[in-house]
Every structure is written in C-alpha cells, then in structure tokens.
C-alpha cells in the first residue's frame, strides 16, 4: 500500500508515543484515571492505525493473527487464575490478600495482575474484531 508520504512518516513518528501512552494508562491506572480496559483499547487503536496506513500485511507482522487470537482467552485466564491463587492461599476466590506477605501489598499486586488480564483480553479482542472486518472486506 503506497499512501501519502506525510501520512506514513507521521504515523511512524506517533506510533511509539501511542504505545507509551497505553502503557502509561495501564500502569498509572492505580494513581490516575485509566486501567486495563482503556489501555487495551489504545493498544488496539495503534495496531488499527498501522493497518490503515501501511496495510493489513504490515499490521499482521506486528500483531500476528495467531497471537491476537490467543490473547483473548489468555487475558481471561490471567484474571481467573489470579482468583484461583486466592483460593489456593486459603482465602475466597478473587481475594488477593494472600499474594504477598503483607495483605495490602497482596491486594495491590492482585489489582495489577487483574488489570493486566483485562488489558490482554481487550487489546486482543479489539484487534481481532478489526482483523475480522478488514479481512472480510477484501
């Protein structure tokens, strides 16, 4: 796909910042607005921008279909697995206080893990949705 030069260069320049912003939203979600859901959507938006500007083939090289499709159940697995870890520690399901020596730190870590699970699932699903539509159109 050979589009406008300015568009391609601008996209290349802006890509790392989009990814950085997604990570900021993810890891700063405990302190400011944001969290796994928003960060996942921003990550997917980055892949979509790549595929709009450089074509679907380039996007597939960055985020291969197989990886994206496996991310969807993986995120749910991370989330549910964090819950099971609480069970194994002798607490209720999704009680994170056993994850570290200090219950408060455990819950902080639990929130972090759960948000990571949400990020993986949301990013995977949104990208897979876009792939499904875009591939269908050709």
């Amino acid at each position, binding site marked *: 796909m050979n589009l406008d030069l300015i568009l391609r260069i601008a996209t290349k320049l802006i890509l790392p910042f989009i990814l950085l912003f997604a990570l900021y939203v993810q890891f700063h979600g*405990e302190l400011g607005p944001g*969290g796994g859901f928003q960060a996942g959507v921003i990550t997917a*938006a980055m892949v979509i921008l790549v595929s709009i500007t450089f074509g679907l083939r380039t996007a597939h090289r960055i985020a291969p279909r197989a990886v994206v499709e496996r991310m969807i159940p993986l995120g749910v697995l991370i989330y549910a697995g964090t819950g099971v870890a609480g069970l194994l520690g002798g607490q209720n399901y999704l009680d994170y206080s056993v994850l570290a020596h200090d219950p*408060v730190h455990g819950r902080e870590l639990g929130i972090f893990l759960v*948000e990571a699970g*949400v990020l993986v699932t949301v990013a995977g*699903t949104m990208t897979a949705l876009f792939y*499904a539509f*875009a591939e*269908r159109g050709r």
Partner: protein
Amino acid sequence: MTLLAVLTGAIVLQRSLFAIVILTGSYSFLMATLLIALDAVDVAMTEASVGAGISTVILLATLHLVRKAEMRPVRPQPLALLVVAATGALLVWGTFGLPQFGTADAPIHAHVAPRYIADTIRETGVPNVVTSVLADYRGYDTLGETTVIFTAGIGVMLLLGGLRRRARNDPPGSGA
C-alpha cells in the same frame, strides 16, 4: 447538552450511513466532554477511546462491506412511533422519582461508597478508588465483563472469520 440533542436530530434525519457514522463519533466525543464535566474521567476516557475511536473504525469497516445509503422505509409506521414515544415518556417520567442530581444523601452515596472511599488506601494501597472498586471490591463484576468481551470477540470471529477460512481452506493463523 443542546449540542447532543442537535446531533441526535441530525443522526435521525440523515440518510447517508457514512455521515451517520461520523456524527455518532462526534456524539461520543461530546459525551466524553460531558463526562469530564461530571468529574467521571475514567468513564470519559473509555467513551472517547471506545465510542469515538474503535466503534467508528469498526462501523466504517462495516460500511466497506455493505451499501452506503439507508433504504427508505416501505411506509410510515405509526405503531412503531407510538411505542417509541410511549417508552420515552415512561423513561422521562421515571427520572422524576430519582433523587436530585448531586444530593449527598442519595441512596447511592449512603450504602457502601463511603466505606470504599475511606478505606481504599489502607486496605488496597491504591489511590484511585475507581480502580480499587473495579478490580478488588467488585472483582467478580469485572471478571464477568472480561468474560463478556471474550465471548463477544469469539462470536464475531466465528461469524466473520470462521466462514471465510472454511471457504478458502486456509490453515488457522495464516492471516492475510
């Protein structure tokens, strides 16, 4: 709020699906601005990224697959109009039973919210109460939401991608 009403009117009257998609995107951005004015920054962020971003892109991708203009209705449907108007009136009537906006003693502020706000730092060490409620106190709900997204993704992939793959006999994950 007035702009929201104007946009809704434009969306209803518009026949070109492309214009409708763009108008829906701007509606989402206006909504996000409104949510920021209401101090709901987390929700505003979601609205801007999902409502204005991803939905618009996916709707445009859909437009690529279908016809661009909405079909004219065969004949006016007074019964449908009546049902819609009645439901709308019922919903507006229902809002009169809600407590005044911003009152401190509304039921939603009297139940568990004060405990969450007071104890979140001591119990979870997370300053953003939205995050701690979402991922810790209401962890089950968020697990359910994540599962819903998972199910929706799998469903769309089966509907759109699965058929195509079987038709062309591609091995899974070959892409392109």
